[in-house]
């Protein structure tokens, strides 16, 4: 049971770190492809 709980905690922690890294590396399409002349 302890292994299972630790596994769930580790999965959430790794996923959270991955989420932060991904969000800093990629932008949503409406931001990535907007220009001063084009607003998406």
């Amino acid at each position, binding site marked *: 049971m302890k292994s299972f709980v630790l*596994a769930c905690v580790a999965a959430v922690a790794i996923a959270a*770190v991955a*989420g932060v890294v*991904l969000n800093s590396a990629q932008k949503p399409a409406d931001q*990535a*492809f907007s220009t001063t002349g084009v607003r998406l």
Partner: protein
Amino acid sequence: MARLLAQARFIIGAFVVALILAVAAPVSAQQPSHVSPNAAAVKEQQLLNALSPGGSVGGRVSIPDQKSGNLIHPAGRDWTRFHEVTLRWIGAISVLGMLIVLVAFYLIRGQVKLESGFSGRRIVRFNAFERFVHWMTATCFIILAISGLNITFGKPLLMPLIGEPAFAGWSQWAKYAHNYLSFPFAIGVVLIFLMWIAGNIPNKVDVEWLKRGGGIVGHDHPPAYRFNGGQKMIYWIVVIGGAAVAISGYLLMFPFYVTGIEGQQLAQVVHGVIGALFVAAMLGHIYIGTIGMEGAFEAMGEGTVDVNWAKEHHALWLEQEMARTGPNESQRQPMATPAE
């Protein structure tokens, strides 16, 4: 005099014509000489050629993403048909087919019982780190499977039930979970590969195990080392299938970093098909690890198994463990205090 004037008009006229031609010549030189622009724009054969496999019809756009200038890409229609029709059939047949097989198998064969009964003596089957890696990978896989099946089946099955707004909200969070939990899943697959590779190399014992039905069909108990033939199949499905869905998934998560549109479509096809087959295979694994076999869940739940269970299902492994730790070692693992 009149004749002189006529000659002068002719000379001036010729000069003017020559002047006009001289001025007009550079302009005409800028036009494509081989075909009229208007005719080229509607030439049917060119369009048909462009719509052949691998072709496309596109223009120019002023926004940074130049891929948006693509107007018609015939291969996209094949891909759309694949993920709207073919993939759903593959997923439905594999997942529902496996569920039907498992239910039928349970009704016909029933649970694989421990025929010699529980001895009360326990032996360590998986240590704490192995169980940690297994459960991290497994819990991530379950969420990845549900959120992945939502992408394929959610629109026709779930959206009519819960409505478009709820489906949109749920799908957005499911996609976040799918993307982010892919990382602990991929780490888990790598750890599983490294952790258990030594015990999962196929050998002659596995062939014999398979020939004798693996102890699942009938009441035979073919000997096996730590991992039997069926478990080795699951191991390689996890390693190869996990690598395939991870690589194809990251190609989709980082679109156009590595591949073009054809590569993206291929990655989606691989991800969808392998993912559906992966879910079906894991349903079989979950079945035999829980209700399908008496005493099996404790191996990954508590880390220990009954000695009689080991004797019936992994006799060669039990012999190795007994030779390594001594015959009384197993008695040091009482049921009430599983090793963590």
